[in-house]
Protein backbone atom coordinates (compact mmCIF):
# COMPACT_ATOMS: atom_id res chain seq x y z
CA UNK A 1 0.00 0.00 0.00
CA UNK A 2 2.80 2.34 0.85
CA UNK A 3 4.37 1.70 -2.52
CA UNK A 4 1.04 2.57 -4.18
CA UNK A 5 0.91 5.92 -2.45
CA UNK A 6 4.50 6.56 -3.41
CA UNK A 7 3.64 6.15 -7.10
CA UNK A 8 3.11 9.86 -7.83
CA UNK A 9 2.51 9.45 -11.56
CA UNK A 10 -0.45 7.08 -11.04
CA UNK A 11 -1.98 9.27 -8.32
CA UNK A 12 -1.66 12.47 -10.35
CA UNK A 13 -3.24 10.96 -13.43
CA UNK A 14 -6.24 9.47 -11.58
CA UNK A 15 -6.88 12.60 -9.51
CA UNK A 16 -6.67 14.69 -12.66
CA UNK A 17 -9.30 12.52 -14.39
CA UNK A 18 -11.66 12.69 -11.40
CA UNK A 19 -11.36 16.46 -11.07
CA UNK A 20 -11.94 16.99 -14.79
CA UNK A 21 -15.11 14.86 -14.76
CA UNK A 22 -16.36 16.68 -11.65
CA UNK A 23 -15.85 20.09 -13.28
CA UNK A 24 -17.49 18.91 -16.51
CA UNK A 25 -20.56 17.70 -14.56
CA UNK A 26 -20.96 21.05 -12.80
CA UNK A 27 -20.51 22.95 -16.07
CA UNK A 28 -23.08 20.71 -17.80
CA UNK A 29 -25.61 21.22 -15.00
CA UNK A 30 -25.24 25.01 -15.08
CA UNK A 31 -25.56 25.10 -18.86
CA UNK A 32 -28.66 22.90 -18.85
CA UNK A 33 -30.31 24.98 -16.13
CA UNK A 34 -29.71 28.25 -17.92
CA UNK A 35 -30.97 26.97 -21.28
CA UNK A 36 -34.09 25.37 -19.86
CA UNK A 37 -34.98 28.55 -17.99
CA UNK A 38 -34.78 30.47 -21.25
CA UNK A 39 -37.40 28.21 -22.88
CA UNK A 40 -39.71 27.75 -19.94
CA UNK A 41 -41.72 30.96 -20.11
CA UNK A 42 -41.91 31.98 -23.72
CA UNK A 43 -42.28 29.14 -26.20
CA UNK A 44 -45.87 28.91 -27.40
CA UNK A 45 -47.27 31.12 -24.65
CA UNK A 46 -49.07 33.56 -26.93
CA UNK A 47 -50.33 30.78 -29.18
CA UNK A 48 -51.55 28.89 -26.13
CA UNK A 49 -53.32 32.03 -24.89
CA UNK A 50 -55.12 32.34 -28.23
CA UNK A 51 -56.14 28.69 -28.16
CA UNK A 52 -57.43 29.08 -24.61
CA UNK A 53 -59.49 32.08 -25.72
CA UNK A 54 -61.07 30.00 -28.51
CA UNK A 55 -61.75 27.30 -25.92
CA UNK A 56 -63.49 29.85 -23.69
CA UNK A 57 -65.56 30.92 -26.72
CA UNK A 58 -66.68 27.32 -27.24
CA UNK A 59 -67.67 27.07 -23.59
CA UNK A 60 -69.71 30.28 -23.90
CA UNK A 61 -71.50 29.05 -27.04
CA UNK A 62 -72.40 25.74 -25.42
CA UNK A 63 -73.69 27.55 -22.32
CA UNK A 64 -75.85 29.88 -24.46
CA UNK A 65 -77.23 26.96 -26.49
CA UNK A 66 -78.31 25.06 -23.40
CA UNK A 67 -79.67 28.20 -21.69
CA UNK A 68 -81.70 29.12 -24.76
CA UNK A 69 -83.23 25.66 -24.92
CA UNK A 70 -84.47 25.89 -21.33
CA UNK A 71 -85.49 29.54 -21.67
CA UNK A 72 -87.64 28.91 -24.77
CA UNK A 73 -89.76 26.20 -23.13
CA UNK A 74 -89.92 28.19 -19.88
CA UNK A 75 -91.17 31.17 -21.85
CA UNK A 76 -93.93 29.26 -23.64
CA UNK A 77 -95.18 28.10 -20.24
CA UNK A 78 -94.86 31.53 -18.59
CA UNK A 79 -96.52 33.36 -21.47
CA UNK A 80 -99.46 30.96 -21.45
CA UNK A 81 -100.01 31.30 -17.71
CA UNK A 82 -99.97 35.07 -18.13
CA UNK A 83 -102.63 34.96 -20.86
CA UNK A 84 -100.23 35.88 -23.70
CA UNK A 85 -99.09 39.13 -22.09
CA UNK A 86 -95.59 40.00 -20.95
CA UNK A 87 -95.60 40.28 -17.14
CA UNK A 88 -96.67 43.76 -16.07
CA UNK A 89 -98.13 44.70 -19.47
CA UNK A 90 -101.67 43.39 -19.01
CA UNK A 91 -103.88 46.18 -20.45
CA UNK A 92 -106.86 45.41 -18.19
CA UNK A 93 -104.99 44.12 -15.14
CA UNK A 94 -105.46 40.74 -13.56
CA UNK A 95 -107.37 38.85 -10.88
CA UNK A 96 -106.20 36.34 -8.28
CA UNK A 97 -105.04 34.53 -6.44
CA UNK A 98 -108.31 34.84 -4.56
CA UNK A 99 -110.57 32.21 -2.94
CA UNK A 100 -110.56 29.00 -4.97
CA UNK A 101 -108.55 30.70 -7.72
CA UNK A 102 -104.97 29.85 -6.79
CA UNK A 103 -103.03 31.79 -9.42
CA UNK A 104 -103.07 35.11 -11.23
CA UNK A 105 -105.23 35.41 -14.38
CA UNK A 106 -104.97 38.34 -16.79
CA UNK A 107 -108.22 39.88 -17.96
CA UNK A 108 -109.09 39.25 -21.60
CA UNK A 109 -112.49 40.83 -21.29
CA UNK A 110 -113.34 43.45 -18.68
CA UNK A 111 -116.36 45.70 -18.55
CA UNK A 112 -117.21 44.92 -22.17
CA UNK A 113 -113.70 45.70 -23.48
CA UNK A 114 -111.66 43.08 -25.31
CA UNK A 115 -108.19 43.54 -23.80
CA UNK A 116 -106.28 41.23 -26.18
CA UNK A 117 -107.07 43.13 -29.38
CA UNK A 118 -104.00 45.38 -29.44
CA UNK A 119 -101.46 42.94 -28.01
CA UNK A 120 -99.00 41.13 -30.28
CA UNK A 121 -98.29 37.76 -28.72
CA UNK A 122 -95.00 37.43 -30.65
CA UNK A 123 -93.69 40.66 -29.08
CA UNK A 124 -94.82 39.41 -25.67
CA UNK A 125 -93.00 36.11 -26.26
CA UNK A 126 -89.78 37.97 -27.21
CA UNK A 127 -90.02 39.99 -24.00
CA UNK A 128 -90.60 36.94 -21.79
CA UNK A 129 -87.85 34.97 -23.55
CA UNK A 130 -85.40 37.83 -23.14
CA UNK A 131 -86.11 37.94 -19.40
CA UNK A 132 -85.72 34.19 -19.00
CA UNK A 133 -82.51 34.11 -21.03
CA UNK A 134 -81.17 36.94 -18.86
CA UNK A 135 -81.78 34.93 -15.72
CA UNK A 136 -79.68 32.06 -17.12
CA UNK A 137 -76.89 34.13 -18.66
CA UNK A 138 -76.46 36.64 -15.84
CA UNK A 139 -75.79 33.67 -13.51
CA UNK A 140 -73.15 32.35 -15.88
CA UNK A 141 -69.39 32.79 -15.49
CA UNK A 142 -69.38 34.86 -18.72
CA UNK A 143 -69.82 38.62 -19.09
CA UNK A 144 -72.95 38.67 -21.23
CA UNK A 145 -74.95 41.89 -21.63
CA UNK A 146 -78.52 42.07 -20.37
CA UNK A 147 -81.31 42.02 -23.01
CA UNK A 148 -78.65 41.44 -25.65
CA UNK A 149 -80.49 39.05 -27.98
CA UNK A 150 -82.75 39.47 -30.99
CA UNK A 151 -85.15 36.64 -31.76
CA UNK A 152 -86.88 35.11 -34.76
CA UNK A 153 -89.80 32.80 -34.01
CA UNK A 154 -91.35 30.54 -36.63
CA UNK A 155 -93.62 27.49 -36.50
CA UNK A 156 -90.99 25.00 -35.45
CA UNK A 157 -87.90 26.97 -34.41
CA UNK A 158 -86.82 29.82 -32.18
CA UNK A 159 -83.59 31.50 -33.24
CA UNK A 160 -81.62 34.22 -31.52
CA UNK A 161 -78.41 36.16 -32.02
CA UNK A 162 -76.54 38.51 -29.70
CA UNK A 163 -76.52 42.18 -30.65
CA UNK A 164 -73.28 43.06 -28.87
CA UNK A 165 -70.40 40.57 -28.89
CA UNK A 166 -69.02 38.98 -25.76
CA UNK A 167 -65.35 39.93 -25.32
CA UNK A 168 -63.00 37.19 -24.20
CA UNK A 169 -59.49 38.36 -23.25
CA UNK A 170 -56.46 36.62 -24.70
CA UNK A 171 -54.31 36.10 -21.61
CA UNK A 172 -50.66 35.10 -21.65
CA UNK A 173 -49.20 33.45 -18.56
CA UNK A 174 -48.73 35.77 -15.55
CA UNK A 175 -44.91 35.48 -15.79
CA UNK A 176 -44.95 36.95 -19.30
CA UNK A 177 -47.50 39.73 -18.75
CA UNK A 178 -44.86 42.24 -17.73
CA UNK A 179 -43.28 42.14 -21.17
CA UNK A 180 -46.72 42.89 -22.73
CA UNK A 181 -47.62 45.72 -20.34
CA UNK A 182 -48.01 48.41 -23.03
CA UNK A 183 -50.30 46.15 -25.11
CA UNK A 184 -52.31 45.24 -22.01
CA UNK A 185 -52.93 48.93 -21.28
CA UNK A 186 -54.00 49.66 -24.89
CA UNK A 187 -56.39 46.70 -24.99
CA UNK A 188 -57.86 47.68 -21.61
CA UNK A 189 -58.41 51.27 -22.83
CA UNK A 190 -60.07 50.21 -26.06
CA UNK A 191 -62.11 47.18 -25.03
CA UNK A 192 -62.35 47.41 -21.26
CA UNK A 193 -60.86 43.97 -20.67
CA UNK A 194 -57.32 43.08 -19.64
CA UNK A 195 -55.47 40.94 -22.16
CA UNK A 196 -52.93 40.99 -24.95
CA UNK A 197 -55.86 40.75 -27.35
CA UNK A 198 -59.61 40.22 -27.42
CA UNK A 199 -61.64 37.41 -28.98
CA UNK A 200 -65.12 38.75 -29.80
CA UNK A 201 -67.94 36.20 -29.97
CA UNK A 202 -71.55 36.88 -30.95
CA UNK A 203 -73.41 33.88 -29.56
CA UNK A 204 -76.40 32.59 -31.47
CA UNK A 205 -78.77 29.68 -31.07
CA UNK A 206 -81.50 27.76 -32.80
CA UNK A 207 -83.94 25.75 -30.72
CA UNK A 208 -86.36 23.23 -32.21
CA UNK A 209 -89.59 24.08 -30.44
CA UNK A 210 -93.21 24.49 -31.40
CA UNK A 211 -94.19 27.60 -29.46
CA UNK A 212 -97.82 27.37 -30.69
CA UNK A 213 -98.14 31.16 -30.58
CA UNK A 214 -100.76 30.99 -33.36
CA UNK A 215 -102.96 29.14 -30.89
CA UNK A 216 -103.61 32.39 -28.99
CA UNK A 217 -105.47 33.79 -31.99
CA UNK A 218 -107.54 30.61 -32.23
CA UNK A 219 -108.41 30.74 -28.53
CA UNK A 220 -109.28 34.45 -28.83
CA UNK A 221 -111.61 33.61 -31.74
CA UNK A 222 -113.22 30.98 -29.54
CA UNK A 223 -113.66 33.58 -26.79
CA UNK A 224 -115.50 35.79 -29.31
CA UNK A 225 -117.78 32.85 -30.09
CA UNK A 226 -118.21 32.19 -26.36
CA UNK A 227 -119.24 35.81 -25.73
CA UNK A 228 -121.99 35.45 -28.34
CA UNK A 229 -122.96 32.01 -27.05
CA UNK A 230 -123.51 33.11 -23.43
CA UNK A 231 -126.05 35.69 -24.58
CA UNK A 232 -128.49 32.88 -25.24
CA UNK A 233 -127.10 29.76 -23.57
CA UNK A 234 -125.42 28.78 -20.32
CA UNK A 235 -121.69 29.35 -19.79
CA UNK A 236 -121.18 25.68 -18.96
CA UNK A 237 -122.68 24.50 -22.24
CA UNK A 238 -120.79 27.12 -24.23
CA UNK A 239 -117.45 26.14 -22.65
CA UNK A 240 -118.06 22.44 -23.30
CA UNK A 241 -118.75 23.16 -26.95
CA UNK A 242 -115.37 24.91 -27.20
CA UNK A 243 -113.40 21.73 -26.44
CA UNK A 244 -111.50 20.19 -29.35
CA UNK A 245 -108.47 17.96 -30.09
CA UNK A 246 -106.19 20.98 -29.72
CA UNK A 247 -107.75 22.62 -26.65
CA UNK A 248 -109.38 21.49 -23.46
CA UNK A 249 -111.29 24.21 -21.60
CA UNK A 250 -111.91 24.57 -17.87
CA UNK A 251 -113.27 27.48 -15.84
CA UNK A 252 -114.01 28.68 -12.31
CA UNK A 253 -116.06 31.57 -10.97
CA UNK A 254 -114.36 34.04 -8.63
CA UNK A 255 -116.55 33.83 -5.56
CA UNK A 256 -118.99 36.67 -5.16
CA UNK A 257 -118.26 38.29 -8.51
CA UNK A 258 -119.12 38.05 -12.19
CA UNK A 259 -115.52 37.26 -13.06
CA UNK A 260 -114.68 33.82 -14.46
CA UNK A 261 -111.15 32.47 -14.80
CA UNK A 262 -110.32 30.08 -17.63
CA UNK A 263 -107.54 27.57 -18.28
CA UNK A 264 -107.25 26.27 -21.83
CA UNK A 265 -104.92 23.31 -22.10
CA UNK A 266 -102.68 23.20 -25.20
CA UNK A 267 -102.94 19.50 -26.01
CA UNK A 268 -100.31 19.55 -28.75
CA UNK A 269 -97.54 21.29 -26.81
CA UNK A 270 -94.59 19.03 -26.02
CA UNK A 271 -92.10 20.16 -23.37
CA UNK A 272 -89.06 17.86 -23.19
CA UNK A 273 -88.08 19.21 -19.76
CA UNK A 274 -91.38 19.05 -17.91
CA UNK A 275 -94.28 16.65 -18.09
CA UNK A 276 -96.73 19.25 -16.79
CA UNK A 277 -99.27 20.41 -19.38
CA UNK A 278 -99.36 24.05 -20.51
CA UNK A 279 -102.48 26.15 -19.99
CA UNK A 280 -103.42 29.53 -21.44
CA UNK A 281 -104.91 31.26 -18.43
CA UNK A 282 -107.16 34.32 -18.60
CA UNK A 283 -110.16 35.95 -16.94
CA UNK A 284 -113.43 37.15 -18.46
CA UNK A 285 -115.75 39.66 -16.83
CA UNK A 286 -119.21 38.33 -17.71
CA UNK A 287 -121.92 40.20 -15.79
CA UNK A 288 -125.36 38.61 -15.78
CA UNK A 289 -124.26 35.37 -17.43
CA UNK A 290 -126.13 32.13 -16.70
CA UNK A 291 -123.64 29.51 -15.48
CA UNK A 292 -125.64 26.24 -15.74
Amino acid sequence: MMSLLKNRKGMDYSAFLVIVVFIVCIYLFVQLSSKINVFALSVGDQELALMNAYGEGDKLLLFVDQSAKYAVFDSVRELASNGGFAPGSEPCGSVGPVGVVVSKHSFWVKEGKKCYSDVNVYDSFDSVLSGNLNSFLLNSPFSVFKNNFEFVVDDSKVMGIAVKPVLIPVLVSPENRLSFSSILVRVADEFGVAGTGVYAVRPSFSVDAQTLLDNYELVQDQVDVLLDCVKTGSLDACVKSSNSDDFKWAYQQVTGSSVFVFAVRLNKFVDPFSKDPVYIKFALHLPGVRVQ
Partner: protein
Amino acid sequence: MRNNGDMWALNSVIAVGLIAIFLIGFFMVASLVLPKDVGKIKASVADADSGSQLISLFRVPVRNMVVADIVRGSVSCSEFENVLDKVHTYSAYSLKINGKTSCSKGLIKDNVLKVDFALPLYDDRIADVSLEVSK
Protein backbone atom coordinates in the same frame (compact mmCIF):
# COMPACT_ATOMS: atom_id res chain seq x y z
CA MET B 1 1.05 -4.55 -5.18
CA ARG B 2 4.29 -5.81 -6.40
CA ASN B 3 4.99 -3.59 -9.33
CA ASN B 4 4.05 -0.37 -11.04
CA GLY B 5 1.46 -2.08 -13.25
CA ASP B 6 -0.56 -3.17 -10.25
CA MET B 7 -0.47 0.31 -8.79
CA TRP B 8 -1.60 1.88 -12.05
CA ALA B 9 -4.44 -0.61 -12.21
CA LEU B 10 -5.57 0.16 -8.66
CA ASN B 11 -5.41 3.91 -9.31
CA SER B 12 -7.48 3.46 -12.46
CA VAL B 13 -10.12 1.43 -10.62
CA ILE B 14 -10.46 4.12 -7.92
CA ALA B 15 -10.63 6.88 -10.54
CA VAL B 16 -13.25 5.08 -12.63
CA GLY B 17 -15.26 4.39 -9.47
CA LEU B 18 -15.21 8.03 -8.46
CA ILE B 19 -16.12 9.14 -11.97
CA ALA B 20 -19.02 6.71 -12.03
CA ILE B 21 -20.26 8.04 -8.67
CA PHE B 22 -20.06 11.63 -9.98
CA LEU B 23 -21.92 10.78 -13.17
CA ILE B 24 -24.67 8.87 -11.37
CA GLY B 25 -24.95 11.71 -8.86
CA PHE B 26 -25.15 14.23 -11.68
CA PHE B 27 -28.01 12.46 -13.44
CA MET B 28 -29.87 11.88 -10.19
CA VAL B 29 -29.63 15.53 -9.18
CA ALA B 30 -30.49 16.68 -12.70
CA SER B 31 -33.58 14.50 -12.88
CA LEU B 32 -34.77 15.81 -9.52
CA VAL B 33 -33.88 19.48 -9.87
CA LEU B 34 -34.17 20.33 -13.54
CA PRO B 35 -37.76 20.79 -14.79
CA LYS B 36 -38.88 18.70 -17.74
CA ASP B 37 -39.76 21.83 -19.65
CA VAL B 38 -39.99 20.57 -23.18
CA GLY B 39 -42.43 17.95 -22.03
CA LYS B 40 -44.41 20.58 -20.13
CA ILE B 41 -44.69 22.87 -23.13
CA LYS B 42 -45.90 20.04 -25.35
CA ALA B 43 -48.40 18.93 -22.71
CA SER B 44 -49.80 22.46 -22.33
CA VAL B 45 -50.34 22.93 -26.03
CA ALA B 46 -51.89 19.50 -26.44
CA ASP B 47 -54.14 20.10 -23.44
CA ALA B 48 -55.55 23.33 -24.85
CA ASP B 49 -56.14 21.78 -28.25
CA SER B 50 -57.87 18.69 -26.96
CA GLY B 51 -59.86 20.76 -24.47
CA SER B 52 -61.78 22.38 -27.29
CA GLN B 53 -62.26 18.98 -28.90
CA LEU B 54 -63.73 17.67 -25.67
CA ILE B 55 -66.20 20.58 -25.55
CA SER B 56 -67.52 19.70 -29.00
CA LEU B 57 -68.29 16.23 -27.65
CA PHE B 58 -71.09 17.74 -25.56
CA ARG B 59 -72.87 19.02 -28.68
CA VAL B 60 -73.32 15.58 -30.23
CA PRO B 61 -77.04 14.71 -30.55
CA VAL B 62 -78.33 11.81 -28.48
CA ARG B 63 -81.93 10.84 -29.23
CA ASN B 64 -83.74 14.21 -29.29
CA MET B 65 -81.18 15.83 -26.95
CA VAL B 66 -77.45 16.51 -26.87
CA VAL B 67 -74.72 14.98 -24.69
CA ALA B 68 -74.70 18.16 -22.54
CA ASP B 69 -78.11 17.07 -21.20
CA ILE B 70 -76.20 14.52 -19.12
CA VAL B 71 -76.04 17.20 -16.38
CA ARG B 72 -79.77 16.75 -15.74
CA GLY B 73 -79.65 12.97 -16.03
CA SER B 74 -81.33 12.71 -19.43
CA VAL B 75 -78.32 11.05 -21.07
CA SER B 76 -76.93 7.84 -19.59
CA CYS B 77 -73.27 6.98 -19.01
CA SER B 78 -73.39 4.25 -21.67
CA GLU B 79 -74.70 6.78 -24.21
CA PHE B 80 -71.92 9.16 -23.19
CA GLU B 81 -69.33 6.38 -23.63
CA ASN B 82 -70.72 5.51 -27.05
CA VAL B 83 -70.17 9.08 -28.17
CA LEU B 84 -66.71 9.24 -26.55
CA ASP B 85 -65.73 5.99 -28.32
CA LYS B 86 -66.47 7.57 -31.69
CA VAL B 87 -64.64 10.84 -31.01
CA HIS B 88 -61.56 9.90 -28.94
CA THR B 89 -59.10 7.10 -28.40
CA TYR B 90 -58.87 6.66 -24.66
CA SER B 91 -57.95 4.16 -22.00
CA ALA B 92 -59.78 5.84 -19.14
CA TYR B 93 -62.10 8.79 -18.51
CA SER B 94 -63.79 10.51 -15.64
CA LEU B 95 -66.78 12.88 -15.85
CA LYS B 96 -67.49 14.93 -12.76
CA ILE B 97 -70.57 17.10 -12.26
CA ASN B 98 -70.38 19.52 -9.33
CA GLY B 99 -67.35 17.64 -8.00
CA LYS B 100 -69.05 14.24 -7.94
CA THR B 101 -68.02 11.54 -10.39
CA SER B 102 -71.04 10.85 -12.59
CA CYS B 103 -69.46 8.50 -15.11
CA SER B 104 -66.01 6.94 -15.31
CA LYS B 105 -64.12 4.07 -16.86
CA GLY B 106 -60.63 2.77 -16.08
CA LEU B 107 -58.01 4.51 -13.98
CA ILE B 108 -56.84 8.00 -14.96
CA LYS B 109 -53.01 7.97 -14.95
CA ASP B 110 -50.94 10.16 -17.25
CA ASN B 111 -51.40 11.82 -20.66
CA VAL B 112 -54.53 13.39 -19.25
CA LEU B 113 -56.56 15.80 -21.34
CA LYS B 114 -58.87 17.89 -19.19
CA VAL B 115 -61.63 20.42 -19.73
CA ASP B 116 -63.64 22.34 -17.12
CA PHE B 117 -66.73 24.34 -17.96
CA ALA B 118 -70.16 25.37 -16.71
CA LEU B 119 -73.59 24.38 -17.97
CA PRO B 120 -77.00 25.72 -16.95
CA LEU B 121 -79.61 23.56 -15.27
CA TYR B 122 -83.36 23.88 -15.85
CA ASP B 123 -83.92 25.59 -12.50
CA ASP B 124 -81.48 28.48 -13.16
CA ARG B 125 -78.66 26.77 -11.23
CA ILE B 126 -75.24 26.15 -12.72
CA ALA B 127 -73.53 22.76 -13.01
CA ASP B 128 -69.73 22.66 -12.96
CA VAL B 129 -68.60 19.97 -15.36
CA SER B 130 -65.12 18.45 -15.49
CA LEU B 131 -64.04 15.83 -18.01
CA GLU B 132 -60.68 14.05 -17.89
CA VAL B 133 -59.64 11.67 -20.62
CA SER B 134 -56.47 9.58 -20.42
CA LYS B 135 -55.00 8.35 -23.69
